[in-house]
Structure formats: structure tokens, C-alpha cells
């Protein structure tokens, strides 16, 4: 059974954090199709957030097609978020770990690594967009 964490300081609205954590759990294989999500009551008892927050998150997930609410029974996982197969994450994670080790040995601190990652992501999305435009 998944357990949630809501970080009040992260700047991400609580309901979105729950949505992201469900998606992540699905990607990681912690949740599979057919599993039941904890009830609203169970979530708030542990995490102490407004019940509407959880309701909103579950509704969003339902709209995305990831979960479905079955009357009288609870909320169940229906599908997986689009994306690469589960193994991909661990494989990429390992190569990333190697890269991070290399960066550290080269003398980069965490902040420089993060900023390098951000710049690269941005540049890459820009390139991706322009590629897509060309293709389209």
C-alpha cells in the first residue's frame, strides 16, 4: 500500500504532490493495475491534510485515466502513465549515477550540477521543440 508525503514548503500544491506521488509509484512499480489506493480517510489520518486535497488529487487521477472510483468499494488503479517501461528508470538511473560521480570527481558541487542539469534540460527541450516543428 502506498503511503503519501506532503511537503508544505516545496511550493508544489499538496494535491499535485499526491498526484505526482501516485504517478511515480506507478512508474516505479510500487503500484500496479488493480491495486486499491488508500481511502481519503486513511490518507488524511496519516498525513493531516484537508480531505478536499485528497479528493481533488483522486479526481485528477481519474480524469487522467489512471484510477477509477468504484461505488462503495474505493479507488483502484486502472492504468499506467504513458512512458517508458519500468526497467528504463533503473537503467537510466544507474548511468546517471555514474555521470554524477564523474562530475563530482571533476570538482562540481551539488549546486553546479543542478544548474548544469537545468540548463541542459532547457536547451534540450528547445532543440526538441524545434525538431518537432521541423518534422511537423
Amino acid at each position, binding site marked *: 500500500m502506498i503511503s503519501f508525503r506532503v511537503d508544505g514548503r516545496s511550493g508544489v500544491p*499538496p494535491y499535485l504532490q499526491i498526484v505526482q506521488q501516485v504517478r511515480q509509484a506507478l512508474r516505479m512499480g510500487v503500484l500496479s493495475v488493480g491495486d486499491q489506493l488508500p481511502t*481519503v*480517510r486513511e490518507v*488524511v489520518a496519516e498525513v493531516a*491534510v*484537508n*480531505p*478536499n486535497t485528497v479528493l481533488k488529487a483522486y479526481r485528477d487521477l481519474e480524469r487522467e485515466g489512471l484510477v477509477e472510483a468504484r461505488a462503495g468499494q474505493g479507488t483502484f488503479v486502472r492504468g499506467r502513465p504513458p512512458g517508458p517501461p519500468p526497467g528504463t528508470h533503473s537503467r537510466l538511473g544507474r548511468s546517471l549515477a555514474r555521470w554524477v560521480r564523474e562530475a563530482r570527481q571533476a570538482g562540481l558541487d551539488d549546486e553546479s550540477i543542478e544548474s548544469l542539469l537545468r540548463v541542459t534540460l532547457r536547451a534540450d527541450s528547445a532543440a526538441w521543440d524545434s525538431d518537432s516543428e521541423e518534422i511537423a
Partner: protein
Amino acid sequence: MSAVIETHELSKRYRRVTALSDCSVTVPESRICALIGPNGAGKTTLLRLLAGLARPTGGAVCVLGGAPRQDPAFLAEIGYLAQEIPLYRRLTAEDHIRAGAHLNPRWDAVSVRTRLADLNIPLDRAVGTLSGGQRAQVALALTLAKRPRLLLLDEPVAALDPLARRHFLGSLTAAVAESGGELTVVLSSHLIADLERVCDHIILLTESRVQLCGDIETLLSEHKVLVGPRKDTSALERTHTVVHAVRTARQSTLLVRVGGPVFDPAYEASDVDLEELVLGYMGASAAPALAHLTAVGEEQ
């Protein structure tokens, strides 16, 4: 949604002290409402007026469709938890449960026993020997066993450690979730971080007056913090309201209630969180004149 609480220019004066003046607030049904304000702002007075334990000296108050009164039917719908946890120290939790069964028309003893069992709180020990957090949980469970429609909690977590606070708020939100929209909560506290997680409505009181009352998400979307060079704000104030301004020699930080989009490129606009909003309004009421004085002084 109908309003569970509606007050109109409510005021309360004790012989020489005005505890509340001109309070007009609305709380819709099934909300968890935060009641925030500095000590002495009138939070306890407001809660007691809503519970029917005190009577207003001016204005009107309407709770659950009628004026609060000393009437068992009304009292059964309200769950009031005073700040100093009101339990008989020498009696056990079980005694309190039995007392509640005798004193209330609706009483869910099973829910109390289950709740306390889940929290590992013994029923047969004198309540005075339990820890502060456990006592608060017992008091909350007893208040909920009445199946009230409105919960009024006066600083229930003030004396609790962080873990006990988390458990208490967890129990509270779980009760709201279980009630299926029937339960409305007003809780007063100083801990804005807790309130931000749990509450969706806010009433802010300073110096016996209401500064803010409304849905938290809406209020946050209506306010922005503008940081920019120190300059005259009259142009800005034509469309927006400056709630609170902190001015140094060169820079202004303004908490603004926006009336539309902010066009001035000199200011960098950012969203506010609940803490900034509350502190801004509290700061504004505490020393509005002073802020202006500093501004003038430094200008010269």
C-alpha cells in the same frame, strides 16, 4: 452551500475592554476554517459567542440557522473544545464516556473507544495522568462522539509536541472525511504551517477586528507580493490595494490585493503563501502609521 456561521457587525464588550468589534464573517458548510490572530485579538471571544457561551453586546450572530442559545438541541449540534482541555483530572476516560452518554441526546461511545484504542490511549487511567497530547486526543474524541455539525476548537494543539500535533490534526481531518460533508470545523491556532495543510477557509482577527475572511485558495490568488524600486505607489493604488508595505531607502516590498493584472514592469511579482499573507495583514494593522512615517522621514 449554505453558511453554517454568519455574523453581522458582531461585537462584544466587557466592562472596559472591547474584545470584538464590528465582526462580519461567513463560514460555509463542510469547511475547515482557520481562525488566526495575535493573542488578545478576540479569537476565544468569537468562539465562545458562536458556541452560545457568551452573549454579544452588539450585532448579530447566526449559527446553524439560528442564534446561539442555551438550549439542549442547539448545544447538541455544537462541539466546543476550550483551550485548557476541560476534563476532570481525577476521572478516567471511561467515566467521561459514560458522562457523555448521560448528558447528550446523540452519543457514539463506540467511536470514542475505537479512536482511543487506535491511539493506544488507556481508558481506565485517571485523565490527569495522561500526557498533554493524549488528553487532547481524549477531549477531541469525546467532542466528536456528540456527532456535532460544527466543531469549535480553541487552540487545541497549542501545548502539544510536533508528533502529537500531527496525530491530532490527522484525527481531526479523518473525522471530517468520515462525516461526508456534514461536519464544519473552526480551529484557532498560531501555527500557520499546520493551518495551511488542513484548512481551506480563513478568518484573520487583529485587535478585535476582522482583517480577512474567505476561501484560502481564492484569497491567495487575489494577492501578490511586488518587489521593486522605492517609488510613489499612487498609480498602482488606482487599481490595486496595497495591504502592507516594507520600504527601505531604495526598495519597496508591497503586499498587494490585485484588482486586475499588474502592468508595471518595474515590479517583480510573485505569488504569496498563507504565512506571507497573514503576516502582511497582521503587520499592516499593527503599525500602518509607522510605516508611512518611516517613508516620509527617509524621503527627506
